[in-house]
């Protein structure tokens, strides 16, 4: 399969079942909602060491938020409900509670087959040292926690669902600037898709990994088959003209969300075409044995054609 001269490999991205939740953060203006969201989703690129993978899904207009203020929606993904619950609590406590003027609300209430309620301010409320106040309207419970700038208002729980993490594709290009330009184009297109985040810095990861290492203590190490500087010495996946490879990792609330994001991302990268040095699109997998979800590149792009 070739799109605009770019070869689409006959391979698949291997993804895993994860737990996900969404939090709506509002503030006096978008700037302060973004500050809170940026802090909350900081150091959350990969579950390997960060606990969660998190990112800003999109900005919310005042008409879309529960309290009618500007906001930001944040998605968090983890490998287990226990980890997600813990990470949500610590990140809420250190990044949102602390941020001036913010309030936080549940972002998942309906529309998914299995929704588990997990604490948003249920435990955070104790920061109020007995001065916290519960209020219930329209079937939802909120906590008012007195803080130095006024009151921190937060819904008691948010919804957690089964989701998918680790959807990905690789962009193989003739030079590093060209690979990055294609990634930027892909990310710009993918950011418009709801229900997904690209958790790595700027949405792009350059240190793709393989399972295992020559060092016994390490469970993963550099994906030497895709490292351009090792082309001549390892069992490479790269043809001579490839000089740089970058990966985009996608976490989504459903497999269909990931497929859609992959489709628009790959499409945007391919639009730059061979004239901009984009040569191949591939994907990362572990032979298909580890992940429950397989996203076949040609199938996904075939559906777009």
């Amino acid at each position, binding site marked *: 399969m070739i799109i605009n001269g770019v070869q689409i490999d006959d391979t698949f991205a291997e993804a895993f079942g994860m737990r996900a939740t969404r939090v709506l953060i509002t503030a006096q203006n978008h700037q302060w909602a973004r500050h809170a969201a940026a802090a909350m989703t900081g150091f959350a690129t990969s579950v390997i060491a960060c606990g969660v993978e998190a990112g800003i899904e999109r900005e919310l207009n005042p008409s879309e938020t529960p309290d009618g203020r500007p906001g930001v929606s944040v998605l968090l993904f983890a490998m287990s409900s226990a980890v997600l619950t813990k990470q949500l609590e610590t990140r809420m406590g250190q990044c949102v509670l602390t941020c001036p003027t913010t309030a936080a609300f549940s972002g998942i209430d309906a529309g998914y087959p299995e929704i588990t309620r997990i604490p948003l301010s249920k435990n955070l409320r104790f920061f109020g040292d007995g001065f916290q106040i*519960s*209020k*219930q309207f329209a079937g939802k419970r909120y906590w008012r926690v007195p803080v130095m700038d006024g*009151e921190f208002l937060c819904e008691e729980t948010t919804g957690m669902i089964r989701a998918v993490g680790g959807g990905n594709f690789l962009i193989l290009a003739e030079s590093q600037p060209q690979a990055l330009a294609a990634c930027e184009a892909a990310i710009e297109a993918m950011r418009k898709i709801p229900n997904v985040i690209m958790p790595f810095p700027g949405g792009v990861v350059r240190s793709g990994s393989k399972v295992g290492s020559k060092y016994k203590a390490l469970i993963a190490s550099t994906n030497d088959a895709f490292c351009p500087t090792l082309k001549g010495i390892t069992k490479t996946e790269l043809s001579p003209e490839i000089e740089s490879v970058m990966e985009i990792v996608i976490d989504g609330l459903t497999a269909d969300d990931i497929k859609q994001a992959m489709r628009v991302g790959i499409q945007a990268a391919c639009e730059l075409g061979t004239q901009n040095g984009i040569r191949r699109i591939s994907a990362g997998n572990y032979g298909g044995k580890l992940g429950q979800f397989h996203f076949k590149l040609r199938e996904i792009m075939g559906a777009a054609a």
Partner: protein
Amino acid sequence: MSALTFTLKHDAPAQRIDLAPLTPDHLAGKSSAEIGAVELLCGNRRWRADRLFDIAGSDTDDIVIDNANGKLDFIGRGMQRGRITVNGDAGSYVAFGMRGGTLTVNGNADAFAASGMTGGTLKIDGNVGDFLAAAIPGERKGMKGGLVIVTGNAGDRAGDQMRRGIVLIEGNAGAYCASRMLAGTLAVMGSVGDYVGYGMRRGTLLLFKTPAMHATFQDCGSHTLPFLSLMFKAFKGLPTKFADIDQNRVRRYMGDIANDGKGEVLVFIT
């Protein structure tokens, strides 16, 4: 199906009648003969419903009580769903222990309305007596959930020992408003009587005018409280004047410090 309508007969006994059995849950699945045979406590005797009321219609989820007077007690007691409409006055204990559904009184109601209520909506298009949403003697908690709208005035002790839920009074409230309140939200558009928030532990009393307050209420200053925006947004569409309010700037008083002092009296300011 038309509403199941109970019209109080003119020759009904002068004693008070306990209407607790006439709820959608209790009457569901009953034939009109069975409904007519439901026994109601009246004074110290039990009377068949069809002896006291003319009964028409069949929809047990939509019950109407016509020609009602202030002697009909326990209307909607423990009801869990459906609708009850009272045309005329209701007696005491309307919506006592109500758990769900909608109860509307197109008239006045007497004491202990919404006592022990845990869910649903009670609307009183008129005045209500003392102890609205309060606990009956021997109980430690009054209203425990749900929504009460009163378009007229409320008597003394509104919200006494109220534990949860929302009470919206469009008129005035009497003395001891929100006394011994445990939690929940009580809002009064008009004036309140003496001893407001007496013994209040927690909860919110929302007022439009600054009342005379005990020294055991402490002024905490003027604030813009975000939860008020959220609350009034939740009220939009409700059949009350409170649905049109969009204000979140208040003066906050906390008390009663003679009794824990975590309650708040919020008074709208501009």
